């Protein structure tokens, strides 16, 4: 016997309702209502999101890291849709109402919204709120503001410079002033504003010349910025003042002339101090002779019959670590590293432009490649060749060394790589410090096997060097 349970329903009311189907996994209207965005940080978050989505869309079609560097990139305006979104969100924030303590985020927002005068106003208000005598606080504010001005798109170099010059003027401490001018120089170079860079360089050199030995040996000088020695900036300034024209003219004469020009700057840098704390911008090995590269596996095979870098033409020696190029993820997958990809793209562009330029890629084995099971050195070398082939660098010569290694005793058994002969031969000393070649480092070698430049140069400078070397070789002059 069937029992029917009656459920009391006001059926009449309900049957009138249409059986509307509900979409599963509903997705709401994704329009963002900025009216609900109360805080500056909310708008900065929106800025970050829109920026990221624009970048991702561009990355979808081209791998941005492999594009040739754009010297005007920092001075280009930001995409209009970003400015529109940010200014819409930022509308509600009147500069007069912003608490000066929030100046950093406010400034970032105003710059992104194209409200430069508001950005300047809030910085000025913040500076006004800081006691005149508190140099540290005022210095920190200027540092923050400068960073924000420079990282805005387009870079607000004039405003940054203005702040920095005012700060320098108000400072009686010469090392402090040098730091400010050094920052100005760095920022001008970063943005690609050569006129400003030259002005800044003059200021740097001007102050540096007036420093006493004690000042040069002070902590503040040795750890001037980001752990870098003040001498770095003096070197940068001298380079800028010398100018590319002069440097190329001397290189055109001979490598020796160029090296002499380079080394002439060194006493000024090292003035009074035989041993500088840490130098990164001085190109390592300039003027040094190169040794022939050694390898266990050469590609093409014929390359083993002659020394590399060869004589009679300029050469580019690239040290590369394939584990930096292809990073193994935590799962059975691998990601291609940005820095490596951009370096290889740079080399490809140079190789394509200068067919006479020899390209030597120095690599070594690690016992594994990507997510594949452990490889013998021969297997790994073959895979490395495939990797380089895929980068389509015309005429690339690859030398792979089977890395000597030891193992920690069992059960640890971690592999400890030993120093590679190529790395040893390309470790050069300057200012009392020896620097082995890091992965992705480049050496430009002239047709006599002398090093004339390294990876510290941006791509367009490297191209100019190569051009000059080729012209020089063409005329048959060498020394």
């Amino acid at each position, binding site marked *: 016997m069937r029992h029917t349970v009656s459920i009391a329903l006001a059926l009449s009311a309900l049957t009138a309702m249409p059986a509307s189907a509900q979409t599963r996994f509903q997705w709401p209207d994704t329009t963002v209502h900025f009216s609900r965005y109360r805080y500056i940080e909310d708008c900065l*978050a929106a800025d970050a999101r829109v920026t990221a989505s624009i970048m991702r869309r561009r990355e979808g079609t081209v791998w941005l890291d492999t594009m040739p560097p754009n010297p005007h990139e920092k001075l280009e305006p930001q995409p209009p849709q970003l400015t529109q979104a940010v200014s819409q969100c930022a509308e509600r924030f009147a500069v007069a109402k912003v608490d000066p303590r929030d100046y950093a985020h406010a400034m970032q927002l105003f710059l992104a919204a194209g409200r430069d005068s508001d950005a300047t106003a809030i910085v000025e208000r913040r500076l006004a709120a800081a006691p005149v005598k508190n140099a540290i606080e005022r210095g920190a504010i200027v540092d923050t503001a400068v960073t924000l001005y420079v990282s805005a798109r387009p870079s607000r170099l004039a405003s940054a410079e203005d702040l920095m010059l005012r700060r320098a003027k108000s400072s009686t401490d010469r090392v402090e002033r040098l730091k400010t001018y050094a920052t100005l120089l760095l920022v001008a170079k970063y943005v690609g504003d050569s006129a400003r860079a030259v002005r800044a360089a003059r200021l740097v050199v001007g102050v540096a010349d007036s420093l006493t030995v004690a000042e040069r040996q002070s902590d503040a000088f040795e750890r001037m910025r980001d752990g870098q020695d003040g001498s770095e900036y003096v070197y940068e300034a001298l380079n800028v003042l010398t100018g590319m024209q002069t440097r190329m003219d001397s290189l055109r004469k001979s490598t020796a002339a160029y090296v002499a020009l380079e080394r002439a700057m060194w006493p000024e840098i090292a003035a009074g101090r035989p041993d500088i704390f840490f130098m990164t911008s001085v190109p390592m090995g300039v003027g040094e002779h190169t040794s022939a590269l050694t390898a266990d596996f050469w590609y093409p095979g014929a390359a083993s019959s002659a020394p590399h870098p060869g004589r009679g033409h300029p050469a580019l020696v690239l040290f590369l670590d394939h584990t930096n190029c292809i990073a193994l993820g935590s799962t059975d997958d691998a990601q291609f590293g940005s820095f490596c990809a951009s370096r290889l793209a740079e080399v490809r562009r140079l190789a394509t432009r200068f067919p006479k330029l020899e390209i030597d890629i120095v690599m070594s084995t690690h016992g594994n490649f990507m997510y594949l099971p452990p490889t013998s050195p021969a297997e790994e070398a073959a895979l490395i060749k495939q990797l380089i082939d895929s980068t389509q660098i015309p005429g690339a010569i690859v030398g792979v060394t089977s890395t000597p290694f030891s193992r920690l005793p069992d059960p640890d058994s971690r592999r400890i790589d030993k120093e590679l002969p190529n790395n040893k031969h390309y470790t050069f000393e300057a200012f009392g410090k020896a620097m082995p070649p890091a992965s992705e480092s480049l050496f430009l070698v002239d047709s006599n096997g002398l090093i004339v430049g390294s990876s510290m140069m941006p791509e367009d400078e490297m191209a100019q060097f190569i051009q000059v070397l080729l012209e020089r070789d063409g005329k048959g002059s060498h020394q």
Partner: protein
Amino acid sequence: MHLNRRLFLKAGAAMAAIATVPRPLYAQFDGAPEPLPPIEDPRLATLAARALDSAKSAGASYADVRLSHTSTRRFDERSAGDSEDMEVGVRALVEGYWGFASGPVWSPDEMARLGKEAVHQARTNALGKPRVAALAPAPIVQNGNWVMPVKLDPFEVSPFEIQDQLKSLSILAERIPSGLLLRNDVFAQVQEKAFASTIGSYCTQRAYLTEGHLTLQIDLSSKHRSNVVTNLECVSPAGMGWELYAADSIPRVRNLSLHDELLMRADEARADGMLPMKALEVGRFDTVFDAPSVANIVDGTLGHATELDRALGYEANADGTSYLSDPAAMLGAYQAGAPLLTLVANRSEPGGAATTKWDDEGIVPDDFTIVKNGLLVDFQTTRESAGWLKDAYAKKGAPVRSHGCANAPSAIHAPMEHIPNLSIAPGRETGDFDALVAGIADGVAIKRASIDVDFQEGTGLGFGGVFEVKKGKRVARYQSAGFLFRSTDLWKSLLSISGDAQMQRIGFSAQKGEPQQTCYHSVTAAPAVVQGLTIIDPQRKA
């Protein structure tokens, strides 16, 4: 009757042929497959009725069915993910024994199967010794419908906006010196449930649950300091929508916007972290607890101890029993705490994580008192368990009724008694935590205590930020300190409780059952002072 897997595999070709045809599942009403309708659709009532009919036909004296449709969306700064499921569960009572069957399919055939299976399950147990299940009366719900009121449906807010808000919090954290958000994510759930029972009730509901995790670390690393890590409990689980994050203030949760709350908490954490560290002096001290501590202690002790099924041994093989071991005798007689202590329960407060219109047995939960002026006066009940206190209720002239504590995470689980929202009655003190501290000449203050209680909730070990108080001020932090307590002694030693303005609501999850279920509820409490708390070093071995 039943095939084992080997047979199934052996069936070979024929089975393989059927198996290759996809097995779609869909809500099937009139015969044609169609997407899921809203929960108020009358055809769901028909489905539900089919399940109950089947159970009745098979011999159930009582049966109920729940259909649940749950959607969730989770976000952190860099990702988002959705889930959605449909579940149905039928419960049947046969000769005092319960049976249950559940699954993911909403179709007439499946309703029939589940109804029959639930009865089958019950029957296999009814073969043994007799059991009585007297269900407390339940008013018939005539096609009720309820939607939890929320200000911002998290599924209607643009996901970009939600992610922007999360990112905004971590950008804000950049402003905090040495600050870092260790965790910044949010989970939102909306669950639609239809309930029907053989007494003739039918109701449909839609409820929201939003839960966030916001953990801030301030790096004070140095010889005498360590990192300070603080969790913002204002985003603990709540019966709310996105307003949990977006509202300018939420009564009893936060007085500031979440943005300002984070900054305030950072300042507070830094100030606490800058206090000098001190070696612990073990002893008994008058102690000030902040509101989250009191909420945690209430939850861990009285909250769990007054679950009636637990007190009567229904969780004995799982988490344990209760120190309130004889509910019938203790009700109205046991002094559970100081006269200052009154504990009430509800499933009605707006924003409560256990808030609902009808519980999972179709009962409208009432607001009821568990402890009144220190005296234990009631327990958490369902339709069946209310009857276990029949005599005790009769003695105090109270009706035998379920307090509506039946709950389940979704229809795949059988409903059971779960902790409702709890609230201690605010006290007379007008001051806040610091004001209570000001009243202590020599003692201890504890912030954000968490406790480990024993399997009867009778004793416990507490952890948290423990501070030395001297002359009304917190002067030092104890590096490794905790407290030992007996639940009843602790509640009896209550000296004062802050007032209404200091009440804070915090969301908790609670696990119980075999198989285990997790449900949510809120606890509202205010800062309080207890006398003579035993402070120890929990890392000290014997």
